[in-house]
């Protein structure tokens, strides 16, 4: 190939996306916002996997298959997560994550 594009580029991209997602997941008050930040992080992982698939094991397709599973699970997670959020916000009348602290001491 000899291309200028090597895995470092994609890993850099995915690291940046992951960091952004993490920032969102840690700093947002809104529960849904946290949820979508987590989706960003998952996406970053997917980029990583697919990049490795292309550059390291193109024949085995392991990376892509992993990514497919991650997308599947993520979809399920978003569905369940949203259901939980709706159920919680009905009972607790809040969507601020810091108010959901009844598991503390």
């Amino acid at each position, binding site marked *: 190939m000899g291309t200028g594009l090597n895995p470092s580029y994609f890993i850099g991209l995915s690291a940046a996306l992951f960091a952004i997602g993490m920032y969102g997941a*840690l700093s947002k008050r809104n529960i849904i916002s946290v949820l979508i930040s987590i989706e960003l992080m998952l996406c970053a992982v997917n980029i990583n996997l697919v990049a490795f698939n292309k550059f390291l094991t193109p024949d085995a397709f392991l990376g892509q298959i992993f990514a497919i599973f991650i997308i599947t699970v993520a979809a399920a997670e978003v569905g369940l997560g949203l259901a939980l959020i709706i159920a919680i916000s009905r009972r607790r009348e809040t969507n601020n994550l810091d108010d959901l602290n009844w598991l503390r001491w």
Partner: protein
Amino acid sequence: MVEFALNHAWLVPLLPALAFVIIVFLTQRWKRLSSLVSITAMLGSFVIASIIAYGVFTNHEFIEKSLVYSLKWFGMEGFNINVGVMLDPTSSMMLFMVSLVASLIQIYSTGYMKGDPQYSLFFAYLSLFGASMLGLIISSNLLQLFVMWELVGLCSYLLIGFYTFKVSAREAAKKAFMTTRIGDFGMLLGILFLQIKFGTLDLVELAAAIPMFEQFGVSLGLLTLIALLFFMGPVAKSGQFPLHVWLPDAMEGPTPVSALIHAATMVVAGVYLIGRTLFLYVQVPGAMEVVAAIGAFTALFAAAIAITQREIKRILAYSTVSQLGYMMLALGVGSLSASMFHLWTHAFFKALMFLAAGSVLHALHNKADVWDMGGLIKKMPITGWTFVVGGLAIAGIPPFAGFWSKDEILVVTMEYAKHGHALGYVLFGMAAFTAFLTAFYMWRMIFLTFFGKEKAENHPHESPWSMTAPLIVLAVMASIGGLIGTPWANIWGEWINFGEVHHAEPALGLMLLSVILALAGIGLAYTLYCKDGEKKTARKLAENYQSLYQLSYNKFYIDEVYAWFTQKIVDGTARVTYYFDIYFVDGIVNGIAAVTRGSGKGLRYLQTGSMQTYALVFFLAILVITVVLAFGSPSLASIMGGVK
């Protein structure tokens, strides 16, 4: 038949033991039947014991070599215990005496205990006692003997506390057990020493081994220590100073018990035990001196207390202590013969006096103070005159039994003194003075109880035949029982002795002294308590020597000292230990728990319940760990890959 009896001597203790089991498990509901079972068994034992005695005392071989047979009880490498039977003249005599006295007292008890709700149980206990006492006598092994020794102690405990509703009985029982326990502790140590040093507890083997004690690596000092430790057991059991305190209190039990256990049989077990192990004591003159000194001192000490006591049974109890002191003294000066002889005669006259006292108490409904009695001999002739026989015997008036045995003790003590033991003269003086005191306090009691004016408030009546018959038998024994051991025809000394038989010449001088002392005592008692109807002189004497009187009446405050020691020192230590336990030891335990709980309490505030904070910490940790791994250690960095 003689052969059978000799070879089946274990039947003697076994029969009462069976009676105990039968009464407890089968016949407890039927009172007459229970007593019948018990008496039949004891009489059976008596018959066998008589045959054994006949067999032994007709065969001179047994003097030199005792009949021993045994079987293994339990064992392991280096420690084997056999139990068995050891018959020699001493044990045969004891078997005969104990089974005879026990039979008589059981017959007596059918009258004395009549109407008691725990009648059956009483006979069960008596049977158990009989079994253990007879077992003790025939034991061929020190451990077996110790077991029986403790069992008689248990029976004594149960019987002293027989009237369980009485607090005094309960406390007396406890005291008896505790005091003897202290003695047993020493005795146990002695037994352990013997087992460890000589590798056996078998009496025959020990008798062979101990004279060669140096071959077993035992020094004379150690052997003395062993002997003294071992002596603690008899000191407690036979009521020797300073562990005599339980014996007078033990009179809380029913009177037949006092007669059987605390006069005739169990308390002499200590004397018997020392007699049995005399082979040990003759090796250690130091220990012998201690035995003799304690014996003589106890004799005098108890007699000094007895002269001021008021309760009839207490006087008898102190008299028992005093007479036991005589026996110890005889052993201490090395005469098994004299000691056993006094044991033999004492058993009869002391049992007689206790039973007669019981008869009096029975008639007066347990009024015990001799000052409240008087003139009883008219209403209770059999009781009274048999008591007088006992009094003559114990005071040492010839030809009654006590005279011969007491005289024998005085003789051997004198001989001991003459053989270069300066201590002997002191002992002799003490013994002689005790003889005078004995005659005095015993006749003081007799005069106060049976002679003098009758008290109007008492309505005495003679006891039933079941009680008087044993009195008569015992009175006969107390009269003539000593004739087998007179200095002129000392059959006794021929059979029962230790070491070489020596025929002491009749010491007429000593006999005369002893008779004079006895008569002086009786005379003094007569002057003070019988002739003088108002007892003015006696009262005046007591007032004039108030401090001495109080000292004697309060038993030299020994009990108070022990009570103080137990309550303050022992219980105090116990409380301190307990507080140490719950505040210090437990404090550490609870302290550790408190630290755990406290740190948990502090740390739980880290648990904010905020997921984002957790996640923040989580990622931060990952970052830190990664940095540390990547840049901290080159070897770890290589694991991370890539970073060179």
